[in-house]
């Protein structure tokens, strides 16, 4: 798998890491700015731009990373449901468990779609 393809597949994790790095740089820059400021009023913009902005970037990066994990679980469930459907196709009578699973999957989709 080429690097570009991997980056396209893992765009959320790559973005999360990029945001974390940017957050670290912003906080470092804010710290340098505050350390060179003689007056509190002079250091306040650095606190806002470095501290708050860095905090925001960390939060967004963390959400992206955790969202990627949830998407992975979602895809795994896609695969399981597809395999389950393939395994039950062509059978004259589905097992109760299989029937319940398919109905449950539709219920889950309906629940999700209603949101």
């Amino acid at each position, binding site marked *: 798998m080429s690097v570009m393809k991997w980056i396209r597949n893992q765009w959320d994790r790559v973005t999360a890491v990029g945001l974390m790095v940017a957050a670290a740089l912003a906080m470092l820059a804010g710290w340098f700015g505050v350390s060179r400021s003689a007056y509190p009023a002079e250091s306040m913009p650095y606190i*806002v731009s470095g501290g708050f902005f860095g905090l925001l970037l960390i939060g967004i990066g963390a959400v992206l990373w*955790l969202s990627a994990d*949830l*998407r992975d679980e979602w895809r795994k469930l896609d695969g399981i449901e597809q395999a389950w459907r393939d395994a039950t196709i062509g059978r004259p009578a589905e097992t109760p*468990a299989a029937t319940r699973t398919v109905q449950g999957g539709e219920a889950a*989709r309906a629940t999700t779609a209603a949101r």
Partner: protein
Amino acid sequence: MTSGSLHLSSPWGSTQRVVLSVGWTLALCAVGFAWFATSGEAVLDHQVGWVAVAAAGVMLAGAVSGAWLLAGRRAVGLRARDTLPVPDEGQLADVVDLRVKAPVATATATAAQTNGAAPVAASGMRHFHRLDCPLAQGKAVAAAALTDHVKAGRTACEVCQP
């Protein structure tokens, strides 16, 4: 996506995407504007209000992010609960039976080793009991003659009165 035609491609719907996007945008705008405003103020008291704006932006981002993650977690959990195969009652009975069999077998072996009529006790116990006494259940008791229990300093249980 293996079944994109049947499912949403992710645990989130369009409404949740819009809420997250708007929340993050507002948060970024709040922090950016607060930074711009504090840069133009020379008095600390005047800057404090803008710092509060930046803090509010961060809190807004945290709120929408938390809602986003909780919604995703819930959607995945609901779908997993409905999709993953659930063992039927027979399979469940087997599992429960396996868990129950070991203690039952142990109790049966203990009962077979002991004489049902003789009082039982375990080392360290101050009283001797009938085999079916509730105070003897679950303990590694052994049957012995009444005189042996008395010699060991035990007295009769007042519950089962052996």
